[in-house]
């Protein structure tokens, strides 16, 4: 099997992640932050160490501002709904995943907020300008993805962050596709809240998300409950991370995340990016030579594009192509990728796209095989 569906979740994971998860399950699988016995305290220490590592990795000023959630979607819902105030205005980009678009649209349908969608261009200046034009006196937040999960566009986060900072607007970033692939520095990029799943570029198991806050923002809570702290009060704690961490955290996944971040640090994020980009560029260049292969973006390279690639075989549904690839033992994702806005922007709502997303654990030879099989499928379908 050639696994080119790493934008959905990375597979394979580093061995060190397997070992860390296994150690947590076997050696200290107690509930962190609840009981007082030595195993529970050992577990809480592992969680704390991971907070420190994640905070440092993303330039978050305090480790206690690292909140562990269930997944990236939950992190985004907590951030968006936590910031929203009745009568406020939001701006999102035209490339958002439904994890951003749906909560924002839900708030609109409930009569709580209004929102506008900023167009993304190949030029950073034009993109920033399109956000700027939409700012109103009641604009409360800009929410945008760092990297499109369908087309790989890298948004000029630092510049949009600067615009948000200058305008006194909360800046929320969805780093689902960029965490572990591109450098992210919350301070430098003026990011107020950074959200992501841990199971993609950070190599942790599924069932863990992260929300990092640059400061102790006055966010409303989405979920309340037991935090192992201030238990004699019915009022949800007002301090981080407890305010946003009701219920037991996913200790084995957090142990895996710790190992995943350590692994990325040891390999080097730039090396990971370059390796993935080499494969994507090879496939892009080969597809460019073929009639009847539709590509939607310029040749992927920084700063504009991250290493994932969407394509179609002309007049064939993306699901059909993905099915034929699967029969050749190649795993990809087809369809709309939970990104209605992005497909609307590129005019691919009707067909969806076939998305190729290699990881560090793939090889250029595998990319060559994928190209060979796509050629074979194209010939078979013509």
């Amino acid at each position: 099997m050639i696994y080119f569906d790493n934008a959905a979740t990375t597979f394979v994971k580093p061995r060190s992640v397997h070992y860390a998860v296994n150690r947590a399950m076997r050696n200290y699988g107690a509930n962190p932050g609840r009981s007082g016995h030595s195993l529970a305290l050992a577990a809480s220490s592992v969680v704390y160490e991971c907070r420190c590592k994640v905070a440092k990795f993303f330039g978050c000023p305090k480790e206690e501002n690292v909140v562990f959630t269930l997944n990236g979607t939950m992190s985004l819902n907590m951030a968006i709904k936590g910031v929203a105030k009745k009568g406020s205005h939001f701006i999102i980009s035209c490339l958002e995943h439904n994890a951003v678009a749906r909560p924002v649209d839900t708030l609109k349908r409930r009569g709580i907020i209004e929102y506008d969608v900023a167009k993304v261009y190949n030029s950073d200046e034009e993109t920033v300008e399109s956000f700027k034009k939409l700012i109103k006196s009641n604009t409360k937040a800009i929410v945008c993805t760092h990297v499109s999960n369908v087309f790989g566009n890298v948004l000029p986060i630092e510049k949009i962050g600067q615009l948000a900072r200058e305008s006194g607007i909360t800046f929320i970033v969805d780093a689902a596709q960029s965490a572990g692939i591109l450098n992210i520095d919350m301070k430098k990029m003026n990011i107020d809240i950074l959200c992501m799943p841990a199971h993609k570029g950070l190599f942790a198991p599924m069932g863990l998300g992260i929300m990092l806050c640059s400061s102790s923002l006055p966010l409303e809570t989405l979920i309340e409950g037991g935090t192992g702290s201030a238990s004699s009060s019915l009022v949800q704690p007002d301090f981080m991370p407890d305010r946003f961490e009701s219920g037991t955290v996913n200790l084995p996944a957090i142990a895996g995340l710790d190992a995943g971040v350590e692994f990325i640090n040891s390999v080097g994020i730039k090396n990971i990016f370059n390796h993935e980009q080499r494969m994507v560029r090879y496939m892009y260049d080969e597809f460019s030579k073929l009639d009847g292969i539709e590509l939607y973006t310029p040749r992927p390279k920084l700063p504009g594009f991250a290493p994932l690639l969407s394509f179609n075989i002309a007049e064939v549904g993306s699901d059909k192509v993905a099915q034929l690839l699967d029969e050749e033992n190649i795993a990809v994702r087809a369809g709309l990728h939970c990104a209605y806005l992005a497909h609307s922007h590129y005019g691919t709502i009707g067909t969806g796209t076939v998305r190729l997303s290699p990881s560090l654990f793939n090889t250029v030879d595998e990319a060559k095989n994928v190209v060979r099989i796509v050629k074979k499928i194209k010939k078979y379908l013509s």
Partner: protein
Amino acid sequence: MDGKCIRIGSVTYANKAKSVLKENGFRVHIRKTSSDIDGCSYLLEVEKTNIEKTVEILRKSEIKFTVTERCDYF
């Protein structure tokens, strides 16, 4: 530690306090307690130091805590 204890309201800050104090060369042990004051909390046992020094380090690190005479909340 002068017969006094540091009490901290959450496990994250207890671990942070332990980490900060360890960086300053102190051996620290965390104990969970269920006080009648504000529910669950953690007591820090810090070896070979005085309370003033510990308090100074924790304040610099912006960790919320209280100093308590009682180290036996069990």
